[in-house]
């Protein structure tokens, strides 16, 4: 703490420029007398870093006109005549730092307040001009056109050692270009701008856009994807429209693109979008990159790392401490190790001062990163060479070589040394004095005062606040005061204030006598002789001469003793996923023999008593009696227990990031849940604890044609990509009824078409009519020869219509949210007329009324067991629905649409025995093979059959009974859940929490800043959840 505050004080000393010439750009008229100075400076005897790794001792640096002229050993660099020579012996010179993530000098833009259902929808952009249709896409914005030199902001960056920054207005999804500017504030914008368009910027956040679309993360991703296609199309067909946004986008394609991602998962998402568009993004993340190191490394991206470490939490209260998520506790501990981990893994990165509310924390935090294992060289590289190269400005900044900008920092010590003080920051050849630090006098001296015997004179403390101790004779120590300014010293001490060991105090107040007062000494320091000398007065007024001579060897030894070597801090391990119940690695596909269980096959074989099932390499290898256990395998006794296929939830909204509905338009078939799978949702683990092994993660039901599904297995610990079932067919959400027509969305939502079931039909008719025409147009174009294609104005690739074409070609399958019979009949009619099939009606609570028609169409039904009466369209819902539809010959499933019910789907299936009299085996099929069939996954999942995926659950009881608990849940032959493993994980969580809580208590005691338990919302998605705010669990 003391360290930080003193530094703060220092930095504040002087931030104004040394006041060289107010240079005017050549084209500008001048008022007053011409003052163009030669600007030639020579820095001699420096310890010079010409770049992050090249150190030259006793070096000379020559600059002229704001540029480096020469930098090298004193022996090789000649000092030109007319140079101002500065002897910087003992000091260190580094290239000026570069920050690629700032908004220096550009106006701030406030994010629009999202009011959800409280305001009427806004379909169109509010931006005036020939720009893109979406307000969050504005690649035409150029930071260079908005940039204004700003003394205060520049000063704050310079104080940290920065000489140049990339600046950008951080607003919107496509943000436009960023400019590279120096932090010189004496010159005009024209001269400090090093590169007008140095990079482009992107994010998934709408920022100031008030337009509804996109209303979800997957919408943002779809919008980016489509915009890249639109720009290509616009470039090829320039006469179709003058779209200044798309033109700008095409022009900036060659620039480095910096993507601001909200966390590690969004970093992966961004990289995927970039790859599709042929752009390798540079990714600015949250500082949690260490949590998915290998996957992020595989992106090939360079990362922009902020040094924003969370404060410790207040954990004194045992109840409140429980509310802090494990991942937040762990992140507190691991965040400072982020840069070191990336560096050790060979992931390229740059460092930024962004995200720090208090920019003065930058250097302390940087030192902390070093303390956690980042090498000083890597740190310097990430602040100089890498950002310069990233911006293709390595010939101008980031190093000190002839011809480059004269941006450098003069330091009192090695850059990251604890006692280093940044003295001067030179930007484009002009000096900005950061601090005036007295020379460092600390050391051990001999002291001679008048005729008194020789003693010792110790200067300790910090260079800027020396502490004085005088040792007249060995064993006695006297504390004194010393101030030194410009080598002028004043010393005051009282010879009677002897500190004789600890705890010893003056026994009684001494009689005031003449000799009891203080000795005062004044004098000066000479560098050559390393000696203080001068005159003084003893307490009794006797004038004396005094002299303190520095003992070099003793001083160096004292310095070494005080330099502490910090051990590498102890931190916990990274978990996959980085959350409670995460593991250091996923369970293996161990060969497993489950013996003597009652096996519910969900196949023709039915229920097999006293049967063994062998799982090998993730597959069900054998089913039979008394199977032999292969070598290396393990066996589980299933006596008295029941083995069922893993449960498949046909309709789930868990594990989705950034909203399940892109309900801002009636048709959003371009959005994909597969883009936003959240592999860290604890709902996955809880599903496993309920015997669920796979699910369809569906778009919500806010619009007639929603987004594309993700089909996942509950591979807790895998990446979002790896959770998805390879080779699974594409699915898409359709919806009918009240949600689609916004019946329950309040008075403001009465504008978006459709508002009735009549309109809903027309949305489908219109969409498929357009899709048919589009398909024809595309086919005609694709038939043309390459040369003819060049001459023809091709159709615009439309991702929304692509998805509908896939439906018509049976490459994508519909899961349609539906309730009442009129609308079900309607969609069947539309499908017949337009030539597509409705694969599944989901919810389908009035399916029992139209089971015959659904059967004729070939539709599947996925329903709730007993939900009803929560809205008008479910007043006729009955729990006998599943049984009647089954008896009418339909393939029926029971789904959850609910993170809680999902983990009890076996019980929901059991209700069909009670309501409607299905057999128990039929009931279990409703959550195993039947959903597998409707998801077209029954070839490898959904039943216990040799050769199928080893997705099985061992239950303590009949799986349809409320008393049954999954004892083991296997996914791909991995034991993803078991009661014993769960107990171990609980114990681990407790232990880890306790360990970190203790560390936080220690940190707080040591003066570290703290924060209250988080109040971030952790909640759940439902079918009709809008926007990105979840319903709260706690």
């Amino acid at each position: 703490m003391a360290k930080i505050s003193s530094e703060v004080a220092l930095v504040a000393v002087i931030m104004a420029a040394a006041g060289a010439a107010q240079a005017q750009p050549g084209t500008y008229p001048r008022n007053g007398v011409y003052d163009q100075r030669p600007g030639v400076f020579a820095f001699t005897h420096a310890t010079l870093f010409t770049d992050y790794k090249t150190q030259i001792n006793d070096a000379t640096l020559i600059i002229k006109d704001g540029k480096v002229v020469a930098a090298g050993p004193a022996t090789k660099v000649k000092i030109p005549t007319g140079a101002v020579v500065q002897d910087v012996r003992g000091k260190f010179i580094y290239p000026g730092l570069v920050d690629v993530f700032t908004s220096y000098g550009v106006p701030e833009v406030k994010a629009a307040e999202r009011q959800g259902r409280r305001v009427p929808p806004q379909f169109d952009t509010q931006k005036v001009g020939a720009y893109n249709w979406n307000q969050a896409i504005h690649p035409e914005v150029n930071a260079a056109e908005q940039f204004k030199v700003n003394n205060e902001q520049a000063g704050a960056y310079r104080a940290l050692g920065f000489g140049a920054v990339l600046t950008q207005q951080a607003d919107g999804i496509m943000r436009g270009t960023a400019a590279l500017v120096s932090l010189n504030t004496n010159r005009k914008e024209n001269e400090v701008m090093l590169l007008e368009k140095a990079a482009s910027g992107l994010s998934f956040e709408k920022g100031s856009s008030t337009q509804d679309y996109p209303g979800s993360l997957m919408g943002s991703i779809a919008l980016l994807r489509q915009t890249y296609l639109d720009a290509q199309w616009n470039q090829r067909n320039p006469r179709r429209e003058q779209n200044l946004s798309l033109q700008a986008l095409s022009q900036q394609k060659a620039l480095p693109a910096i993507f601001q991602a909200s966390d590690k998962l969004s970093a992966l998402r961004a990289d995927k979008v970039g790859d599709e568009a042929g752009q390798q993004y540079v990714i600015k993340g949250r500082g949690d990159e260490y949590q998915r190191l290998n996957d992020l490394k595989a992106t090939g991206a360079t990362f922009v790392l902020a040094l924003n470490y969370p404060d410790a939490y207040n954990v004194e209260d045992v109840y409140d401490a429980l509310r802090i998520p494990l991942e937040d506790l762990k992140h507190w501990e691991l965040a400072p190790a982020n840069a070191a981990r990336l560096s050790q893994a060979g992931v390229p990165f740059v460092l930024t001062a962004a995200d720090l509310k208090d920019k003065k924390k930058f250097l302390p935090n940087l030192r902390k990163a070093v303390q956690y294992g980042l090498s000083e060289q890597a740190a310097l590289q990430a602040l100089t060479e890498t950002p310069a190269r990233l911006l293709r400005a390595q010939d101008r900044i980031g190093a000190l070589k002839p011809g480059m900008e004269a941006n450098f920092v003069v330091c009192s010590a090695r850059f990251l040394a604890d006692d280093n003080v940044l003295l001067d920051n030179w930007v484009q050849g002009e000096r900005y004095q950061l601090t005036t630090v007295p020379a460092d006098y600390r050391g051990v001296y001999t002291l001679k005062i008048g005729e008194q015997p020789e003693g010792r004179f110790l200067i300790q403390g910090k260079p800027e606040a020396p502490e004085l101790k005088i040792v007249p004779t060995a064993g006695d120590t006297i504390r004194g005061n010393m101030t030194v300014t410009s080598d002028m010293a004043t010393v005051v001490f009282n010879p009677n204030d002897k500190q004789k060991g600890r705890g010893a105090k003056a026994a009684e107040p001494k009689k005031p006598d003449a000799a009891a007062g203080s000795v005062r000494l004044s004098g000066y320091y000479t560098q050559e002789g390393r000696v203080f000398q001068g005159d003084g007065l003893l307490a009794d007024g006797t004038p004396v001469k005094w002299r303190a001579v520095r003992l070099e060897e003793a001083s160096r030894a004292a310095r070494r003793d005080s330099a502490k070597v910090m051990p590498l801090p102890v931190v916990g391990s990274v978990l996959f996923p980085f959350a409670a119940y995460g593991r250091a690695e996923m369970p293996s596909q161990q060969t497993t023999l489950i013996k003597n269980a009652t096996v519910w096959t969900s196949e023709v074989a039915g229920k097999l008593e006293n049967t063994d099932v062998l799982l090998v390499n993730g597959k069900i290898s054998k089913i039979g009696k008394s199977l032999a256990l292969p070598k290396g395998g393990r066996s589980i006794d299933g006596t008295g227990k029941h083995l069922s296929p893993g449960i498949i939830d046909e309709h789930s909204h868990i594990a989705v990031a950034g909203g399940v509905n892109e309900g801002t338009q009636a048709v959003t078939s371009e959005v994909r849940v597969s883009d936003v799978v959240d592999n860290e949702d604890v709902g996955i683990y809880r599903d496993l604890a309920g015997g669920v092994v796979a699910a369809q993660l569906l778009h919500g039901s806010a619009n007639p044609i929603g987004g594309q599904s993700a089909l996942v297995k509950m591979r807790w610990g895998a990446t979002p990509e790896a959770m998805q079932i390879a080779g699974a067919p594409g699915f898409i959400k359709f919806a009918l009824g009240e949600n689609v027509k916004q019946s329950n969305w309040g008075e403001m939502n009465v504008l978006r078409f459709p508002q009735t079931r009549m309109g809903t039909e027309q949305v489908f008719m219109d969409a498929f009519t357009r899709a048919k025409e589009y398909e024809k147009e595309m086919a005609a174009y694709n038939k043309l020869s390459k040369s003819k294609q060049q001459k023809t104005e091709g159709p615009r690739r439309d991702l929304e219509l692509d998805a509908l074409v896939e439906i018509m070609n049976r490459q994508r399958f519909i899961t349609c949210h539906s309730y009442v019979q009129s609308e079900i009949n309607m969609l069947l009619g539309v499908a017949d007329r337009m030539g597509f099939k409705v694969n599944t009606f989901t919810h389908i609570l009035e399916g029992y009324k139209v089971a015959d028609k659904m059967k004729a169409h070939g539709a599947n039904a996925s329903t709730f067991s007993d939900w009803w009466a929560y809205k008008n369209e479910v007043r006729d819902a009955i729990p006998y629905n599943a049984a009647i539809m089954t008896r009418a010959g339909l393939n029926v499933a029971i789904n959850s649409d609910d993170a809680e019910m999902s983990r009890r789907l076996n019980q929901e299936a059991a209700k069909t025995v009670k309501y409607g009299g299905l057999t128990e085996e039929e009931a279990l099929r409703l959550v195993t093979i039947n959903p597998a069939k409707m998801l077209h996954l029954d070839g490898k999942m959904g039943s216990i059959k040799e050769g199928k995926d080893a997705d099985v659950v061992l239950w303590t009881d009949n799986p349809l009974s409320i008393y049954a608990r999954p004892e083991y849940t296997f996914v791909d032959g991995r034991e993803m859940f078991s009661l014993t493993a769960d107990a171990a994980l609980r114990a681990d969580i407790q232990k880890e929490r306790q360990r970190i809580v203790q560390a936080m208590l220690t940190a707080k005691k040591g003066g570290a800043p703290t924060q209250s338990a988080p109040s971030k919302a952790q909640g759940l998605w439902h079918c009709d959840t809008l926007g990105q705010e979840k319903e709260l669990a706690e």
Partner: protein
Amino acid sequence: MRISLTLALASTAFTAFAQVPTPALPQSKPMLITGATLHVGNGTVVPNATVAFDKGRLTYAGPAAGFTQDKAGYETIDAAGQQLYPGLIVPNTTMGLTEVESIRATVDEQEVGALNPNVRAIIAYNTDSDIMPTVRTNGVLLAQPTPRGGLLSGQSSVVQLDAWNWQDAVVRADEGQHLTWPQMIFRLNPNEDATALDRRQKARESQLRDLEQLFGEANAYRQLPAGRKENLRLASLAGIFDGSKTLYLHADYGKEIIESVRFARRMGAQKVAVVGARDAWMVLDFLKQNDVSVVVSRIHALPRRDADDYDQPYKLPAQLQAAGVRFCLDYQGDQETAGSRNLAFVAGTAAAFGLTKEQALTAVTLTTAQIMGIDKDYGTLEAGKSATLVLSQGDLLDMRTNAVSRAFIDGRSISLENKQTYLEKKFRSKYGL
């Protein structure tokens, strides 16, 4: 009786039963149920039991061997192989107050304003709801319609689920006051800063001051002599000080539970129960030491925090049982009106996660009755109590076996038909199933 009922069914199918079934007539002759396994509700199980009741009251409930009266004059139900239970009681419910959750016109559960102790749920209780018949079909025969929202939400009553109107339905009127304890945990919107936390903390403190003021004045008010100026609010709170009304404290977080109970005791409330109590596991000793009963929110719920045990809600009843805290189970939450028919299954889950089946049954019968002060008449099947009982083909608490064959409220044999059984028959006939 049985034959005539079946005939009635056949003749009126698809017409009369599209309506809410007609309330059953008062018990006209003594009934005898023989051969069933009797689950008394207090933990006792009697195989091959005999249960006799007349004029709505149980005259015998015990081993067959112990019933020595002449069986002539009784109408007998041979229930061999079946299970016999007290009618289940769903506490803290909006059933009867809400018909269709999303249609405002059908929702009567929350009055405007924060302090509504004078508001009475029983007034809005709708005996003609389509929902009630579907709930009792699964064995729930009594309910506690409860107002929601604000701070003092109003008063609850206990009703039976087969009635002509709310007066007819009342078992115990206005037996409780409901105080929704202000939450301690505040949530920030993404665009709010830390000052918002401060503001909410202040607002909460002011709410607590208002409550303290109101309770203090209400306690003083009741001591004023007759002829005082009438104040409906203050008057309605009198019962919590003299013990005639229970003060139900709706709180979930451990610290909220402690804070609310201490508040209630300080204010002089005689009978106190905590409702919700999803974090009761944090404060088991406190609950035991202060002799506080708990109405546990629907345990078919997700754990409150990511790191909580996946089965924390499921095992909460067992934790309360082990700690010696009196508790019952409710079905509060999403879709609670229609979902109340699953009350038996939350008890089943509690049994799967640590309770015995009989303990789980007690948590939806006897302790519920005790907490609501109706255990003299309801909650167990013992001679002298109301003949409010359920006969099931199998274990009532497991959906795999729950199949109610007969149900009686105060000795009246109620219809097990409902809108949904009607629709089932209608469409089965369409497909010839």
